[in-house]
């Protein structure tokens, strides 16, 4: 990892999609500002918040850019941020989650070591807010309490050109838009690397999107898997190739 000193600074745009996220937004923005590899810009993409989100962003003056749109879902908010991003690379962090201070540095080291890389993700660790201590106990020995391979946008650092190649996030999906994007990237043969390091901390709290839309998202999830399966079966009927996912040694 000594290569960090030899690195030329690359332009990284950090996109923070947010909907009524005033409670944790400061912590999230601070964890970006505390990166040892500083991004060139931070863009908050506000998905129609009605709380004090704009006021929190205003505290950061010109350090953080602010975009607003009527509520249209997390995929649309990420796309809003993407449309404004100027960086050669883009990273995303939801407005309630945190990065390890070396998250961007360790990922950029991989891009310098492997110029062919299209995107890099890391492992992620869930953590529960203190009020949900009982739920934390319930999941003590569960997979959700362990470091997990982070196929979520919070861990993603990608070349911006990859989005031009495979498209942005699917705004028709309210829950699994990131999973669908990763699958699309793999189907397009994008070169990826999953770091074994836990560099993202995902906060589980009262109003996580997956919790708020649980029954609706189950249905979306099943439809997404069925569509993917149908596509793969059609593909395997005409080709011997299939997209491969790297196996994680930390997942179980």
């Amino acid at each position, binding site marked *: 990892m000594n290569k960090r000193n030899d690195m030329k600074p690359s332009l990284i745009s950090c996109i923070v999609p947010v909907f009524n996220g005033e409670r944790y937004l400061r912590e999230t923005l601070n964890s970006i500002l505390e990166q040892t590899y500083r991004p060139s810009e931070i863009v908050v993409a506000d998905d129609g918040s009605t709380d004090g989100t704009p006021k929190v962003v205003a505290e950061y003056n010109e350090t953080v850019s602010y975009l607003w749109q009527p509520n249209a879902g997390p995929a649309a908010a990420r796309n809003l941020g993407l449309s404004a991003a100027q960086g050669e690379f883009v990273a995303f962090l939801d407005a309630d989650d945190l990065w390890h201070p070396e998250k961007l540095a360790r990922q950029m080291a991989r891009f310098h070591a492997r110029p062919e890389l299209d995107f890099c993700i890391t492992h992620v660790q869930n953590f529960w807010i203190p009020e949900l201590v009982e739920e934390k106990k319930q999941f003590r020995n569960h997979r959700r309490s362990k470091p997990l391979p982070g196929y979520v946008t919070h861990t993603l650092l990608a070349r911006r050109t990859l989005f031009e190649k495979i498209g942005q996030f699917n705004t028709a999906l309210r829950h699994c838009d990131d999973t669908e994007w990763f699958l699309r990237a793999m189907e397009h043969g994008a070169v990826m690397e999953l770091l074994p390091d836990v560099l993202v901390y995902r906060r589980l709290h009262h109003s996580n999107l*997956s919790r708020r839309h649980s029954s609706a998202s189950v249905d979306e999830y099943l439809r997404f898997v069925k569509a993917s399966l149908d596509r793969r079966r059609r593909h395997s009927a005409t080709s011997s190739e299939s997209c491969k996912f790297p196996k994680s040694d930390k997942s179980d």
Partner: protein
Amino acid sequence: MIKIHNRLCPDKEEVAAKIMDGEAIIINLSTGVYYSMDNVGAVIWEMIEGGFNLEECVAAILERYDVSCKEALADVKRLVEELVEEKLVYVSDQEAPPQNKRRLTQQQKLPYESPKLNIYRDMGDLLALDPPTPGLKEIPWKESDDEDLDE
């Protein structure tokens, strides 16, 4: 050992399932492993979700399909054992309550094909991280508690 009168229950805490285009798609949300069953398999899954016991499943298969009792019983037992092994279904010790079995109006029985559970473990890492979480109940949000915590 699964008995003929045991009630079969899908694990609703960790398993999501839906029948689409005659195919049952089942996901173990904890592992990200997903499954598919079509034709007879999808019908059996529908019956399991409806709370049928093993005997009732077999009886319904015999009503609908051109198959011997022996073959249907062997297939249903094998499939249920697989579903239990994959932790998609558990077997209750209690006897099943009486079911309102749907009577079929068809005169001709459908051709039978042994049910098969297709297992896909290729996207486990991708699907297991951020699944919807039916085990986590909606927690009422109280603004007053929230404000207290910020202090």
